[in-house]
């Protein structure tokens, strides 16, 4: 606590502190240069510490930014050469044969994420409405459950989907993968949806009810309408998280070439340069998609806050 609030030091500088009589001030007058010099010294030290702190913080920010720059740079550098229109529309070919693309992986990823959204969005939306319109112990418990489920490792969710949909049905399927991704996205959606609904003033809800509208009508025309930008941006963020997940697909998708992330995993861990090239190109497509998606989500959210002002 240098120099801010240090009673010990204050006493050292001016003995007789608290004695405010004229005589006391005069008696202490000759010490003023000493006190001022001491204050200057600590100020110098404190300023030096401040400069050090500033430099360290700038360094930390630079270190924090470095991985993103390096990730985007290397993915572009190694992925772009392998990228072409044909790469996007052709099916993968076995190792050693030139050409081939990732059309099956793109279609598979789209199908899995689409199915997952079909399952997760309605449940998420209505659960969020439930949380929005009811307060109390049950709502609190569900909210807590959503927060906990957000923290559950994706690989555990993958095993859950395997146990529920793959093992009993005796085959891997995109449905099981979609279920896993749905479970993964659901808690994110619930919390984002509820946050978005909170931005709609309760007065409007009450006004809707006072007009004699049904609950469902108020939910649709007031709450959902008002929260729309927030709902869109929250759900888009959940999608961008779901698209990039690999672990839940490991035990649910039939073949690696049916999902982009799995394809990157199997190709990237092979020692062949051609396979690694495929992995980089796929990673570039995936990264571009995810970053654009989060950018759009952010834009929508920004638009919302600007409109609210």
């Amino acid at each position, binding site marked *: 606590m*240098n*120099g*801010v609030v240090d009673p010990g030091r204050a006493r050292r500088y001016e003995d007789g502190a608290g004695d405010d009589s004229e005589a006391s001030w005069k008696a202490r007058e000759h010490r003023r240069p000493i006190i001022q010099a001491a204050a200057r010294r600590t100020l110098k030290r*404190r*300023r030096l510490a401040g400069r*050090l*702190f*500033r430099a360290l*913080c700038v360094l*930390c*920010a630079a270190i*924090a930014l470095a*991985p*993103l720059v*390096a*990730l985007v740079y*290397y993915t572009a550098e*190694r992925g772009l050469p392998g990228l072409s229109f044909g790469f996007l529309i052709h099916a993968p070919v076995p190792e050693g044969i030139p050409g081939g693309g990732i059309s099956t992986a793109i279609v598979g990823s789209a199908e899995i994420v689409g199915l997952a959204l079909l399952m997760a969005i*309605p*449940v*998420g939306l209505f*659960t969020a*409405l*439930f949380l929005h*319109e*009811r307060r109390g112990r*049950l709502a609190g418990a*569900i909210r807590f459950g959503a*927060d*906990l*489920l*957000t*923290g559950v*490792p*994706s*690989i*555990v969710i993958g*095993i*859950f989907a395997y*146990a*529920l949909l793959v093992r009993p049905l005796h085959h891997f399927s995109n449905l099981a993968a979609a279920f896993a991704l749905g*479970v993964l996205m*659901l808690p994110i959606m619930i919390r984002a949806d509820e946050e978005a609904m*909170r931005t709609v*003033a*309760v*007065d409007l809800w009450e006004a809707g009810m006072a007009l004699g509208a049904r609950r469902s009508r108020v939910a649709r025309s007031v709450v959902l309408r008002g929260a729309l930008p927030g709902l869109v941006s929250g759900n888009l963020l959940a999608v961008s998280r779901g698209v*990039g*997940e*690999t*672990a839940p697909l490991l*035990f649910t998708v039939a073949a690696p070439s049916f999902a982009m992330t799995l394809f990157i*995993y199997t190709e*990237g*861990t092979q020692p062949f340069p051609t396979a690694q090239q495929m992995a980089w190109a796929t*990673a570039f497509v995936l990264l571009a998609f*995810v970053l654009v998606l*989060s950018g759009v989500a952010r834009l929508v959210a920004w638009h919302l806050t600007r409109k*609210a*002002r």
Partner: protein
Amino acid sequence: MTALPGLAGVASVKDAIRRRHGRRGGRAYVVVRWAAAAVFVALLCGLVASIAVDSSQALAHTGIGFIWSGTWNPAANQFGAGILVVGTIVTTFVAMVIVVPVGLGTAAFLSELAPRWLAGPLSTAIDLLAAVPSIVVGLWALLVLSPVFADHVEPFLKSVPLLQWFFHGPAYGPSIMLASVVLAVMTLPTVVALSRTALSGVALADREAAMALGATHWQVVREVVFPGARSGIAAALTLAVGRALGESIAVAMVIGNNPSVPHSLLAPGATLGSAIVNEFAEAAPGIGTSSVIALAAVLLMLTLAVNAGGQALLRRLGPGRLLRSERAERPARPGRAARREVPA
């Protein structure tokens, strides 16, 4: 005071509305709403129950000692999560050693030092880092970072006198250290975003008071801002730990997958997540699969405990202290009185 005429009618109007809504006021809607909540609760319970049931066979075979027993050797029918738990905790710990100073420094920079034109884009960039799929981070770490580590970083770490105790042995590239770096990259956005919110939530009046006492900027940050945001930062770190514990695929790509007692951070190791990734497909049906699912159960317990702790920390703060600034940004947010429970 006499009762206002007409006020007596309010109760009956209210009753009428309630009756109307009870009878045909979107009963289907209320049912659907309940059903959605029920589905969610069922999923939560189903997840825990399914993992518990499937791992019971392994736990019955090995006993509760599964959690700390040290050998993982499926070929010899020996199953124990001990080494993997150690590997998980070590990688997470080393990742936190990297992330805590860097993350807090960045958060302090964003909230205290950076001019507005820089703080906005920089925090967006760090949020974008959170959006990068873990598989892309893993690919980058495996193909770009790993050779750099083997040739430059790891020999350097071995040459530093005091660090030699942690870093010795051959430098392969894939190692516990590399996995920790990957985890650090992946948890950094969580730490930065949450602790930044906590830092900027510290009241302006507190800072001004310290400034008025003659504190320099650095002293204000150290004496007022960080202590004021202490619990928010603790929650941020807890959630980051939870995330690091559960990450599997990127770690599996770079850790070298060697379930043995780690003697050096440069040696290959294994975590719960990486072992599940590698073992699940090859596990023998029955006891083998059940053991891998038991690993998932251990991982689930570990992360649930850590996350529940983090949530409890966040909750105890309440929105008043952690999210003070956020509340000010939200003009449409209704007041406390207006947010009372809506009669269902």
